[in-house]
């Protein structure tokens, strides 16, 4: 049962500057340059090919921006030298309105640049920038497939926004804004203003908040910082968390006089020192109150709980975090699934140069395709007016063409199935299915203009994938983290992650937990991921409970982590291993100096004994940065071995210091299939020997019974 009390602005304490009659500074204009490659994810240069070629780029307008000038599009491009300048041009449309054009002539064959003003009046939250290249290389019959017809849009093109930050409105219904802006660019920056003395409940609350904000940030990251002082030192949005008594900042922001024990309070206020930044207050009279307040924010049904500037939270029935925004989703843990299970919808492509439809298919890190491979039943449709002699559908997996089929019905078709075998050796945990429609119009005549927009192909989301997998791995192996942080990505509904914290955690530890929660939330798709923080002295923190994964974070300066590892409670790390590790550490320090941090995968003592992740930094304050670096999408690919040393400059050294052991059951059938595939001649020989033995047996038996073979 949800029991929520809406509080009104009366609870909000007037900002300090109001009390002091000292108005804050008026926000100044700011500039943000959004690049095609980094911010708009165009995936490299954009090729416009054919007589009339289209390209589309989408961009957003962040919620906190008040555009004070028209954004400027800085388009960089090159084009074929064969284009006739009088017949070739590039036109820019913003939300279907033309906003600029340029001749494709000799001056801009290389290093072409076009600056276009994008009228503010046309800009909405979600915007579509269409680039239309009309290209011609001859005055006579135009062959749309001539390779001379091309224009390349550079991924270094950008849009320059000039804006003024908008003051934050205190409205909890806007959550996760302003902590996470779904329309924003880059990572969401958030500062944690925690209590002086951090409790286990605070850490758990932060873990939940991190998980929720990580989910909602999705491909954007959440970056957590620990400010050197109070809110006046904070230049980002902030979270103020702690009990009323434990965190004095709480009372500076909200009136908590009516707060009862066990009751949580959530409030969203503007930072008194800079109202363009928001402050999320998560508090309670006691630890239970703080926790329930955090659950109120992080719960999927927070809209039922929170509205207005502040809200009291008594109970939260369903603490599951909001649904993930990942798309496509990782493959479900079963052999057969449809593209719709990955969150992929029907996709239609058009034209001569129809773009490839790519669907990432990501399996768990320990997934190994069975020797027999799998199948894809591609369900597709296509329109009429196709040249059925030339038009084809091609299916690739991980860049390998597997099969193609002619689109042979002149009337088009809406219900076609193509069965494609997937050899086991090209199926990987991180796979990509590409479906390419090669479309050609019927009765094509180069001397006559024929639009190519009426030819289309659709990949249906009912396309099925049959990919039987076995699950086993040799651990500890940091390399497995590249598969969406497996096995720490909280996807196994039977497993949870326990973050082991010192008995007296610092604020830096709290920030690291918030950061860890955010990273795991970004990666996890489970409905109810189980992330909790427990004290090292808490016996329930023992990893021997079920399938828990354990994360141990700490600074080397106080030796706490090493102590945890050596006391044998958490790990079954052998003395030899410890010695080896220590020896390597000496080597590491001798080689690279004091590392930025080390990451170690080790063995726990639980039933699933290979899931301990140890993060160490020289100082605790660097922990949240370490977490961020470990889960960075590019850096995670560099991880290998079971010990990684992150250098201050960004490099990573990886070492294998612990013996790996197979974890997970290798099915007998799969093992036998692999073995027999490798030793097939032996199978033939053994079968023949068995046949001869069988014959000898039958002969002997028959002879005793007056028979002959």
């Amino acid at each position: 049962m949800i029991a929520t009390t809406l509080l009104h602005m009366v609870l909000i304490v007037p900002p300090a500057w109001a009390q002091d009659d000292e108005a804050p500074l008026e926000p100044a204009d700011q500039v943000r340059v959004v690049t095609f490659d980094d911010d708009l994810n165009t995936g490299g240069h954009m090729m416009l090919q054919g007589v009339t070629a289209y390209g589309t780029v989408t961009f957003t307008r962040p919620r906190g921006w008040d555009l004070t000038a028209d954004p400027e599009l800085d388009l960089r491009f090159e084009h074929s030298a064969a284009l006739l300048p009088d017949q070739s041009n590039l036109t820019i449309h913003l939300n279907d309105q033309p906003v600029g054009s340029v001749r494709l002539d000799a001056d801009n064959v290389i290093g072409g640049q076009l600056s276009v003003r994008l009228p503010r009046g046309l800009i909405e939250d979600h915007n579509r920038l269409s680039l239309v290249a009309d290209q011609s290389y001859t005055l006579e019959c135009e062959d749309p497939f001539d390779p001379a017809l091309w224009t390349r849009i550079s991924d270094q093109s950008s849009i320059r926004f000039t804006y003024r930050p908008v003051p934050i409105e205190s409205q909890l219904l806007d959550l996760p804004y302003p902590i996470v802006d779904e329309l924003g660019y880059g990572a969401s920056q958030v500062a944690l203003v925690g209590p002086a003395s951090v409790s286990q409940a605070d850490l758990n609350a932060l873990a939940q908040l991190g998980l929720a904000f990580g989910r909602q940030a999705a491909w954007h990251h959440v970056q957590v910082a620990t400010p050197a002082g109070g809110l006046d030192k904070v230049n980002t949005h902030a979270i103020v968390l702690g009990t009323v008594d434990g965190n004095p900042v709480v009372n500076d922001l909200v009136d908590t006089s009516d707060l009862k024990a066990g009751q949580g309070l959530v409030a969203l206020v503007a930072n008194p020192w800079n109202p363009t930044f928001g402050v999320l207050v998560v508090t309670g009279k006691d630890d239970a109150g703080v926790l329930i307040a955090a659950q109120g924010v992080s719960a999927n049904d927070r809209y039922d709980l929170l509205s207005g500037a502040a809200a009291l939270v008594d109970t939260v029935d369903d603490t599951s975090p909001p649904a993930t925004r990942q798309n496509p989703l990782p493959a479900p843990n079963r052999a057969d699934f449809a593209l719709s299970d990955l969150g992929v919808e029907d996709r239609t492509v058009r034209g001569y140069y129809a773009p490839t439809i790519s669907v990432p298919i990501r399996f768990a890190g320990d997934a190994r395709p069975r020797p027999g491979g799998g199948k894809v039943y591609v369900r597709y449709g296509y329109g009429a007016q196709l040249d059925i002699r030339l038009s084809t559908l091609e299916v690739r997996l991980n860049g390998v063409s597997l099969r193609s089929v002619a689109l042979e019905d002149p009337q088009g078709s809406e219900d076609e199935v193509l069965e494609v075998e997937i050899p086991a050796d090209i199926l990987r945990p991180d796979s990509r299915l590409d479906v390419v429609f090669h479309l050609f119009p019927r009765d094509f005549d180069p001397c006559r203009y024929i639009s190519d927009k009426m030819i289309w192909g659709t990949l249906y989301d009912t396309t099925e994938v049959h990919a039987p997998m076995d699950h086993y791995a040799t651990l500890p192996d940091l390399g497995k983290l590249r598969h969406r942080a497996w096995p720490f990505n909280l996807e196994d509904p039977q497993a949870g992650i326990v973050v082991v914290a010192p008995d007296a955690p610092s604020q830096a530890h709290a920030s690291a937990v918030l950061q860890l929660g955010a990273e795991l939330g970004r990666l996890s798709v489970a409905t109810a991921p189980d992330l909790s923080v427990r004290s090292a002295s808490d016996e329930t923190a023992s990893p021997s409970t079920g399938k828990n994964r354990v994360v141990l974070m700490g600074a080397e300066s106080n030796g706490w982590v090493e102590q945890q590892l050596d006391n044998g409670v958490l790990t079954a790390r052998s003395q030899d291993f410890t010695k080896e590790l220590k020896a390597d550490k000496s080597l590491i320090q001798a080689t690279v100096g004091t590392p930025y941090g080390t990451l170690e995968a080790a063995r726990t003592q639980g039933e699933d004994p290979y899931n301990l992740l140890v993060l160490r930094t020289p100082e605790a304050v660097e922990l949240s940065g370490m977490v961020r670096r470990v889960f960075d999408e590019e850096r995670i690919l560099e991880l290998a071995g079971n010990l990684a040393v992150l250098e201050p400059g960004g490099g990573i050294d990886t070492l294998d210091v612990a013996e790996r052991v197979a974890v997970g059951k290798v099915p007998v059938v799969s093992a036998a299939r692999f073995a027999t595939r490798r030793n097939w001649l032996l199978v033939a020989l053994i079968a023949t020997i068995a046949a001869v033995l069988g014959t000898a047996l039958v002969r002997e038996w028959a002879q005793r019974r007056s028979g002959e073979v």
Partner: protein
Amino acid sequence: MHTDEPDRGAGSEDERQGSPAALWFGLVLIAIPMVVYALLDLPLRAHIGISLAMMGMGLLLTRAVPDWRLAAVFLSLAASMRYLYWRVTGTLALDSFGNSAASLMLLGAELYAFSMMFGGYFQTAVMRRRSVIPLDMAPELLPSVDVFVPTYNEPVGVLRRTLVGCAAMDYPDKLVWVLDDGRREEVRHLAAELGCGYLTRSDNAGAKAGNLNAALGRTQGTLIAIFDADHVPVRSFLQVTVGFFLKEAELALVQTPHHFYNPDPVERNLHMEGVLPPEQAFFYHGIQRGNDFWNGAFFCGSCALLRRTALEDIGGIPTTTVTEDAHTSLKLHAAGWQSAYLPIPQAAGLATERFAFHITQRLRWARGMTQIFRTEVPLLKPGLSLAQRITYSAAAAHFLFGLPRLVFLIAPALFLLFGLYPLRAEVLDVLVYAIPHLFLATVCTSAMHGNRRHSFWPEVYETALAPYTALVTTLTLLFPGQQKFVVTTKGEQSDKRIYDWSKAWPVLLIGAFAIASLVVTPMRMLGIPEERGTTLLVGAWNLYNILLLGAAAFVALERPQRRSEWRIPYTCNVWMRDHDIELATDTGQGVAPSEEEAWRKAEAMDLSESGIRLRLWDGRPVSDRVDLLLELDDGEVVALTGQPVNQVEEHSELLVGVQFDALSTAQRDQLIRLMFTPPDTWLRDRYREDAPLRSALSVVGSVFGMFLPFGEEGRRADQGEPLAQALATRRCTQCGTVDLAGTKLCAACGVSLASAAAPFAINRGARTRRVQWGAVLTGVVFVGLSASMAWGWSPDVDRLAVPNNAPVSIEGHDRVRYHELVQAHRELRQSYWTFRASLLPGGPALPATWGEKLFWLQREYRLHEGDKRSEGLWQAEGAVRGAMLTLMSAEKEYRSGAPQERVDEMLDSVHRLLREAATHMKKGRQ
């Protein structure tokens, strides 16, 4: 279970015979690697390697060490299981109703064929080694035997032969009964004349079975011998069969083979008599011996001896099916009775002479066995052992071949004519799975069948009968109730060649479909290039079907049958003299020969009731009329006169055909005894060991040979080495009776034969055990190739693989691009040679517009950076483009007066690139 072997010493029966449980356990263990092989999924190269290994091992085992051919059978079963597993799990086309129907039908047919193959292997894997059991007691102690000859409408002449043969059987206490359901006076007189009992009844209820049951109630013999009206027993029949009943109290039945002295319609009409072993030789010399090992020998309705009490125990001969014989033995076995099978032909009969009668006979068998399959369900019938269940099920299900055979015949047409997919798989997959299965099945079946059945000919028999049995068995499966017993007509004559359209039309209709499919095959290959491989494969299958259908269609082309009696190969001493010869008087005056000199010794080659074929060594011609003295094996002499109808001189010998003058009844009976009753008469069949390749060629030859002119006698085949040697017979010193059974007392007159009495081994129809070196060498090559592949030799087979790294078939725009590229390559190559020629002293000058031509060639074929196509084409494009650019550069250098070495060097590069492009295009095309 009893044994006929002498006691081997101490030890319990179980110890001595071995435990079946231990055998099954051992076989299950041994089956594990076979199952692994069957389920193994392999990359293409390994798949080809292991297939070669298995086929090579199969060849080596069957051809190098024939005694161990059963091991190859295990491998064959594994390969077939592998094929079927793949068929069931990966090839069904269930995407539309038509495809589903075609797909499931073909799979069903293949499953049926596999079950029949398994049944065949099981039935012939182990054969019973039986010897005749001597009648080791005084004649008066031997059990009484009633000999039943049921008849309905058979010609009296045919029946007379049988009765004469029955009466001639050497046995002290026997009574011959004619069971006449035709109620004919002439038969009654015949029985009286030959001293046989005559029984008839007021109705024909239960047909043959009812007739026999009626006779059972009116006779008292301990044992019952049954002969069809056209089956003439030899004299020793009872001597060699009764002993089994004396030895085994639980024995209900001793069956002997049915032997036919005339060819069946397939052999005869396709001119294959003497070449092919008779169709039923496989059953009587293979299947029945195998069944006998499992105590599952069937009663075949004739040439058998049964125990009266056993028949009474099961309520007489069952009348609910039209194959009362198999039904009887099924009931006997289920009731716990034993059976025995003696593989010595002890009677001979007439095979059906015309295709129409052949169909009638087989339809009755098919109907009856299907009734048993449906109503008795042998696989589940209580009282039977597991082996008996398998043997009866296999035998009953055998006659269900009609529908599966039709499916095999029409499946290619479904694809070629109607575009339906009976199976959906890549050609290469079909080959790598099907070839080991078919190869090993053929090799092993051939090895197991030896000289009893020749490969591929059973398919011809099945094809000819399939349209009929398909309908009959399907109806019987649905409505298994009592059906009419149709008597097979025999003894017909015809003096002209006729084509039996009424029986051939179904085969011709299917043949028309197959030929239509053959016609569309090239069109389909051209029209749907991406299915060219599949079309070719199915086309080959269709061609095979056409051959079978051709052979089956020619079976209906009836050869004239002018003789009223069949000639039987026969050897005996004959004395001949000219009938009108003037003999010298006692005074010895004149030049006329004496009585002794007048008789010329000759040798009989073949004999019928109307004539004889003789071989004379002295080379003297024969007059228009001759006297003949034929010596019977029992010392009796038959004196005949006749007219020579043809004389052929062969080397120094004279071959003379003599037609007898009208014979008296006594003479005819004497001849019948001479021809049909000697114990070793039917042991002379000789056939070559099967060789699948030769057999396949013989099927082809039989079809194409029909278009060649034949003599009246047709082709006679080389009969090869005799496979069955005559029994070592000995005669009674007093009465001359042949003692086949090694008895101590002569069965006919009771004189003591103890001094020579010793059981002798029965010739078991030995199969040749020669090592076939050609096949062995092939096997060694297969295994060697496989081992090479396992140890690293890597033939470039992966590029043939369909779903692997590159698209195999060029489809859509790739196909068009390929043709464009080929054309560009061709033109570029021509330009290259033109350029080369211009460099030669006195060669033509390079045209001024040559460079422009190259430029436009490049434009025309768009030899720029194109989009990424399939890998082979993409590489080919690169190479062609490189060649083009290099050629253009060479032209510039040439025109700018560069040294010729420089230009030559560039042209060499062009040549190399062109060859490279050709290689890539070849790969890209795969």
